[in-house]
C-alpha cells in the first residue's frame, strides 16, 4: 500500500444507481458504520434515463475511500461507483446569500463584491436581496468573508456537483449487465 493510502485527502465519490427510495439509507449506513463523515451529498438525475447519480464528498484516506466504494458498488441497485481526487474532476458548489436591501444602495463596496466575485443578483425585494454564487468552495468562502462584515441575513451552500475528466461508460456497463 502506497503512502497516499494513509493520508487524508478530498475525494468525490460518484454513484450511478437505480432510482430507489431505500438506497440513500443503505449508502449512508456504509459511511456511518465506519465513522466517516459525509462532507457533502447531492442526488440528481444523470445523463441516462431513470439512472440517478449520487455525488458524495469525503475527507479521508484513499484506502478507506476504495473500501467504501467497494461496499457501495456491492449494493444491488448500484450500477457503478467511482472515486476521484479533486484534480481528476471538474466540480462546483452553489451558494445563496440573503442581505438586507438598504446595503445594496448604501454600501458601494457591496456592489464591488458582487462584481468581483462574478455573482448574480437573483432577486431584489423591499427588505432584502439575494445573491447567487457558483464556484469552488474556497471562492464561495472568500465571498462569504467579504460580505460577513456587512451582515448576512441567511446563507446556504449546496452539495458539490462534479463531472470526471475521464469517461464513466455507464451506458456500456448497463448494456453488458443486461446481456448477462
Amino acid at each position, binding site marked *: 500500500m502506497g503512502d497516499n493510502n494513509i493520508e487524508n485527502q478530498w475525494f468525490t465519490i460518484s454513484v450511478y444507481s437505480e432510482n430507489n427510495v*431505500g438506497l440513500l439509507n443503505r449508502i449512508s449506513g456504509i459511511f456511518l458504520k465506519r465513522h466517516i463523515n459525509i462532507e457533502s451529498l447531492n442526488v440528481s438525475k444523470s445523463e441516462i434515463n431513470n439512472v440517478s447519480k449520487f455525488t458524495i464528498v469525503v475527507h479521508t484516506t484513499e484506502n478507506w475511500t476504495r*473500501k467504501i466504494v*467497494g461496499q457501495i458498488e456491492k449494493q444491488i441497485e448500484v450500477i457503478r461507483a467511482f472515486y476521484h481526487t479533486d484534480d481528476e474532476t471538474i466540480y462546483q458548489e452553489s451558494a445563496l446569500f440573503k442581505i438586507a436591501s438598504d446595503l445594496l444602495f448604501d454600501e458601494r463596496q457591496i456592489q464591488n463584491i458582487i462584481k468581483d466575485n462574478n455573482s448574480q443578483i437573483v432577486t431584489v425585494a423591499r427588505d432584502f436581496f439575494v445573491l447567487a454564487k457558483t464556484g469552488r468552495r474556497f471562492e464561495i468562502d472568500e465571498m462569504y468573508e467579504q460580505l460577513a462584515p456587512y451582515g448576512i441575513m441567511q446563507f446556504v451552500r449546496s452539495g458539490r456537483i462534479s463531472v470526471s475528466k475521464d469517461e464513466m461508460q455507464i451506458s456500456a456497463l448497463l448494456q453488458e449487465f443486461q446481456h*448477462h
Partner: protein
Amino acid sequence: METLKEMKTETRKGKTLKISGAEAIIHCLLAEGVDLLYGYPGGAIMPVYDELYKFQDKLTHILTRHEQGATHAAQGYARVSGRVGVAMATSGPGATNLVTGLADAQIDSTPMVCITGQVPRHLLGSDAFQETDIIGISTPVTKWNYQITKASEIPEIIAKAFYIAKSGRPGPVLIDITKNAQFEELMFSYKKCTGVRSYNAVPKPDKKALEAAATLINSAQKPFIVWGQGVILGKAEEELKAFVEKAGIPAAWTIMGASALDTEHPLNVGMVGMHGNYGPNILTNECDVLIAIGMRFDDRVTGRLDDYATQAKVIHFEIDPAEISKNVHADVAVLGDSKETLALLLPLINVNKHESWHNRFKEKYKIEFDTVIKNDIHPTKEGLTMGEVIEEINIASQQKAVIVTDVGQHQMIGCRYAKFRESKSNITSGGLGTMGFALPAAIGAKQGAMDREVVAIIGDGGYQMTIQELGVIFQHNIPVKIVVLNNDHLGMVRQWQELFFEKRYASTVMVNPDFVKIAEGYHIEAKRVSERKDLKSAVQEMIASDKPYFLEVKVEKEDNVFPMIPSGAAVSEIRLK
C-alpha cells in the same frame, strides 16, 4: 376446490389469472420450488396465513415458537440443502424478532428470504398498531430489502428476492408487504428472475489473473491453502480436492469452510483461527504463498493484521470484489465463482508434493496432540471433557452426521474434533456468533436433509436462549439429536475472565434447571450422563434412536479451550496453554 385446482394448473402454464395478493405470494413460493417455510402469524400477515391453510398440501408451514427460531431454522435448512430458506412473520415485534437471524445470514452469506406483513399502506408513517420501519431496521443486515405496497408488484419482487438471495455471494432478503397489498387482487403471472441490470452476481474470471496465480503457485516452495465457505457455496468441493492433490499443498479451513474436504484427507491440516490448530496458524507466518479460497480474512482468522502472513504473496480467489484487499492485501486476485476459477486453474498447475513442507505440519500436529488433543479426547482426569463427547459422536455416527453447533467453548471443541466425510456437514454461526442458533438451526438442517443424522451440540447457556423450539421438535416429531454440554457456566466468557480478567467471574456462573425434565415435559426421550463409564452407551443409544433425543452431559465446569490466539496477538503467537 374445483376452481382452486383449475387455477393452479393455469398458473403452472404461466397464464394470467386474477387472484389476491396473499394467494399470489403462495404461488410465487411454489414457483420457486419452496415446499417448506418457518414462521409465526399475526395481524398484518393473516391473509397470507389464510392462504397457507388452503395450500397446506403443497406447502408446509412450521410454526416455530419464536420468530428468531424461524430464521435460524431457515438458515439450517439452507446451509445443508443449498436451497433458499424461507421465514415469515407479522409486522412490528414479529418483524423485529427476525433481525438477529438476518444479521447472522448476512455475515455468513446464507440464502434466505424473509417475508413480513406490514400495516396497510394508508397507515404507513402514522405509528399504527404494530407498525415498525422494518425496511429501515433491516437495511444494514440484508443483501436487499423492499416494501411492497401494491398487489401488482408481488410476482416481480418475489422473483427478484429469490434471485438475489441465492445468486453470487448469497445472503438474506427481506420483503415487507402491506396488508392492503395482500387483500388486493392482481392479474397473476410468474416469471423467474434471471438477472438484475444493476447487479453483477458473478464476476467473470480473468485469464491473466489465473495465469499469475498459477505462476506463483508453481514456483512456491512453501505454499499454503486456506479455504472458506466460498468452496461450499460454490459447490467446488471436487475442484478444491483436485487442486490440493495435484499441487500437493497443505490445506486448512476456516470454521465456515469445515467439511468441504474430508477431515482425514492427508492434505487437510486442520482449522485456522483463534481456536484452530497449532500448525496451520503458526505456519501461516512461514508460508511463501498463501492461497485464500472463498474466505474473507475475518479477524478471528487473522489475529493481529499487521503480523499476518506478511512474508507471503497472497492469492485471493473470491466472488465478492469488495473482499479483495479489504483486510489482507491480495497480490493476485482471482474473481469469480470458486467452481469455475478452480477448474480453470487446475490445468495450469504443476504436479508437486512439497514433502518437507508438509512434514512441518506433521511436527506441529504432534506437539498439539501431545499437549492438547490427547487430554481433550482421551482424558485421564475424572471429569468428562467436551472433546471426548465429540469423539464418541464421531464413532457412533461413523463421521456421517451433520453437526450443528451453538456458540461458545462447545462450538470450538465441536468444530475442532468433529470429523466429516461429506460437505455441508458443519452448521454453525461463524461470523455473528449467535447463541441460540443451534437448536432451531438443527430443526432446519434435519428437514433439509431428512436422510442424514443431525446432531446439535449446545452449551447450557445458548440452549436456554431458544429452548422453546423443543415444542417444534415434539409437535412435528423431528428426529434431531440434542446434546447439551453442561458446564454450568457461560464457559467461553468464563475462560476469558480466567485468562484476562483475573478470574472475576462476573455473571458467568449459572444455576441451571433440570434439563432432562424439561425435555421430558415436551415428551422427548432424555438422558443425563455425568460419568465416563456411561458416556459411550448413552451416545450410541442416542444415535441409534430414530426419534428426537435429548442427552445432557455434565462436563468439567472450568475447562479451557486451547490452542488460543489471544485477541490482539499474531497467529504465530498462538498459545498451547
